[in-house]
């Protein structure tokens, strides 16, 4: 039972941290609760579909379908997070400053949230499909007590969600002055980390060279197998033994989004009356 709880906890943790960050980062956007719930629901349905189609996915692209699938959905999430951060650089402050929402802001807000719905769905789907396969596997084994396994799974799930909720609650305590800077930084690191993980899958599929592997080794400090390692992997794509290609992806995405954010911020400052607030 505890073994089950631990595996489910580990799988849930990464998705829960991502959802926690997004829930905080979208503070002030109208109707965000429904969008987040929609993303979770889509992710759960997607988990079942991906788990059911695992064999079919594996067979695509000379047996490298799974790697391509993971790399692609991570890539999609990176683009969505980049869009979010750049959008927030020009709209975030207005959203937080005014409790009253204007029609334009609501429309813009739903566009923004539909983008993040995809990120949440992707995060849940990636970890969720593995969890489904794992739980299906242990439920199929006769020596396991189904009730105890279900209990273990539930404990792991609740534990993972609790950590995500703690992160969310902690982020909300950040004073408004720094709030958007803090959540933007987290989303920026999240996107860069996902890009690095995407690179890892492409290297695993033998479609990208690793460019020196590993460049450094911090597994003696925080191992990727540990819970802390798993949490850091979810938050910023931490890899104790990163390859040159992963590092390149991380910093390329980090710098590209940072430039986009700076550009959006400058534009919103020089053009005071945007259509959304007029």
């Amino acid at each position, binding site marked *: 039972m505890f*073994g089950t709880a631990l595996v489910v906890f580990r799988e849930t943790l990464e998705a829960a941290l991502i959802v926690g960050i997004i829930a905080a980062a979208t503070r002030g956007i109208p109707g965000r609760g429904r969008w987040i719930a929609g993303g979770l629901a889509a992710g759960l349905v997607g988990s079942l579909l991906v788990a059911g189609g695992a064999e079919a996915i594996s067979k695509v692209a*000379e047996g490298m379908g799974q790697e391509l699938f993971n790399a692609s959905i991570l890539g999609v999430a990176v683009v969505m997070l980049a869009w979010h951060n750049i959008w927030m650089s020009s709209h975030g402050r207005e959203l937080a400053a005014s409790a009253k929402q204007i029609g334009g802001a609501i429309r813009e807000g739903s566009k923004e949230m539909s983008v993040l719905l995809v990120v949440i769905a992707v995060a849940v789907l990636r970890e969720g499909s593995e969890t489904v396969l794992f739980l299906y596997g242990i439920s199929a084994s006769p020596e396991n007590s189904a009730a105890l396994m279900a209990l273990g799974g539930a404990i792991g799930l609740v534990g993972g969600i609790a950590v995500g909720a703690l992160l969310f609650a902690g982020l909300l305590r950040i004073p408004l002055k720094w709030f958007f800077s803090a959540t933007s930084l987290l989303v920026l690191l999240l996107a860069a980390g996902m890009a690095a993980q995407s690179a890892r899958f492409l290297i695993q599929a033998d479609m990208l060279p690793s460019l020196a592997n590993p460049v450094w080794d911090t597994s003696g400090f925080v191992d990727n197998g540990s819970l802390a390692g798993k949490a850091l992997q979810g938050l910023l794509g931490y890899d104790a033994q990163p390859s040159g290609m992963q590092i390149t992806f991380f910093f390329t995405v980090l710098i590209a989004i940072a430039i986009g954010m700076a550009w959006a911020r400058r534009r919103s400052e020089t053009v005071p009356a945007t259509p959304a607030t007029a």
Partner: protein
Amino acid sequence: MLRFIAAALLAASASAFAAEGDINLVIENHKFTPDRIESPAGKKVKLVIDNRDATAEEFESHDLKIEKVIPAKSKGTVFLGPLKAGEYKFVGEFNEKTAKGVIVAK
């Protein structure tokens, strides 16, 4: 773009076929056979994992940086290295108690 993807896939499959001395690994009753694999150091090697169990397994190795679900009753391929000489542990994440092994690069 499509042509580029097709070319990339072709290149990937060509390199997959070019690999000499593939290593075979069997998963049965949530255990790896063999659980100690010797592999040449400094060379890229193809590892074919044959899951004969009725349930999926996740081949996972932080040392090798591989994470791959092998669905029930199916085979999966991963590429190793080129590895430096040394020991690289791997597990079946869904059955960590029994599914353990090590690759020794020499």
